[in-house]
């Protein structure tokens, strides 16, 4: 579905909501930047071959629990799929392009 343009009323309401929240804090901005960077890094890493959570964590220099959290979210929203096991760990791979559905739901 294409993106609609916000109406003047919606833009005004959005501005007021942003102001009521005290603006976008630097902490929130950094958290979002970190999220997008991590997700992009995982997608790039998995382009070559599937990987386990510890392998992703080592490659992207992030804690393993954080790597698992990202993988879980990306799987939920159709970006990744399970691709077998490697020892005690699951392998994750990029979802085929057409598989955009919410696989966890």
């Amino acid at each position, binding site marked *: 579905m294409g993106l609609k343009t916000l109406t003047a009323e919606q833009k005004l309401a959005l501005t007021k909501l942003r102001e009521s929240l005290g603006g*976008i804090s630097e902490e929130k901005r950094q958290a979002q930047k970190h999220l997008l960077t991590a997700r992009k890094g995982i997608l790039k890493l998995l382009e070559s071959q599937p990987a386990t959570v510890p392998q992703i964590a080592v490659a992207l220099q992030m804690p393993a629990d954080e790597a698992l959290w990202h993988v879980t979210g990306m799987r939920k929203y159709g970006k990744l799929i399970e691709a077998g096991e490697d020892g005690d760990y699951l392998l994750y791979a990029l979802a085929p392009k057409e598989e955009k559905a919410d696989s966890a739901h």
Partner: protein
Amino acid sequence: MNTAIDSSYSPDVVVIGGGIAGLQSALDLADQGMSVLVVERNASIGGHMIELSKVFPTLDCASCITTPKMSAAAHHPNIQILTYTEVEAIESIEEHHVVRLLQKPTYVNFDKCIGCRLCEYACDTEYPDPFEQGLGSVRAIAVPFTNAIPQKAVLDAEHCGTCGTCARVCPTGAIEFDQQPRRLSIHTDAVILATGFQLNAVTIKPQYHASLSRDIISPLTLERLLAPHGPYGRVLRPSDGKIPSSVAFVQCAGSRDESIGVPYCSRVCCMYAIKQAMLLSGALPLADITIYYMDIRAFGKGYEQFYQNAKAMGINFVRGKVARIQPVDGSDLSVLVETTEDAENPMQEHRHDLVVLAQGMVPGWNPKGIVNADCAGDGFVATPQLTAPTATTAPGIFVAGAAAGPKDIVDSIAEAGAAAMQVSEYLYQKRSLTTVG
């Protein structure tokens, strides 16, 4: 936001809490022809039960029991539901009650939202999903969970980046950034408190070092790991995604201990631990599963047989008290237990991948300053009358389910039915007197 209800609405009964007890009370009253308003603080009704994988001792799917009740309540002509709504006060004047409510903004017009989730798919902000106990992620605008009722998106302003993408993709124009909190005053003749329970923190006992490891988890976290639609789709260790080969349950980890302010037994931990152990043995056939316990309290109908079945399945029951849990090299957890089963070697250390702490059940809501009903010494709503077990100390205010004390689902539902009958009798007598007078 549901704006169909305003302060002119005056139901016969207001039920506080949309968990299984509240819904059962509401359905029983509504089936008798009474008008009922259910007030739920979360974005969906269902309470804790909708978070569970299966129930003991039948191992029935919890969602398969809860979802029809949720749906029945949502579609009942005599029941209205307000979600995302907090109770600010319940003022009682001569057995008449005014329930003052604060409905939080969802920033979504529920009359227009069709639950298509296009806004959720378009949003690029994610945060730890509270429904998944933080294990999974959810977007800043989302339908709360798969079988949530209402099946409407809710925008979490705290996490929203205010980019406006949700409004740009919404096919029905349901996003309303200018929604404000709404206050309502609902007049009613009776109130049922069905505010449920919460678990005390996994960190309540410092000797278990839960703050040092993601793999020391609460039983509700394990419920999500075991649920078919859980965050990982299977049971994995939260610290690194390892398929666990050894899982331990530590019983009485948050109950029966005066030092943490919970001297009572939480009544359900033995049974849910046995249930979870059985489910784990199915999900992880090669894993060793151990339950460290002081005594097993299998008091309900069919519960003892359930316990015996678990032993026959190979679940390892070790009688003793866990003294310490410590993360050690290789992400393992060292469990030091003083057992009564080996007189020569009572202090034993075992290694596990995952440890589940049986936390204590504590009240889910503190009524102090909000409603004129007393609490007992344990913090749960007091029910002083032996012959009216759901009546509180305030006339016209009743209680059902775990709000009155720790209890399992079967007992919560039975008590909810009892509360509905007591309310029905109370209103009949009150209105008869009014008519005669």
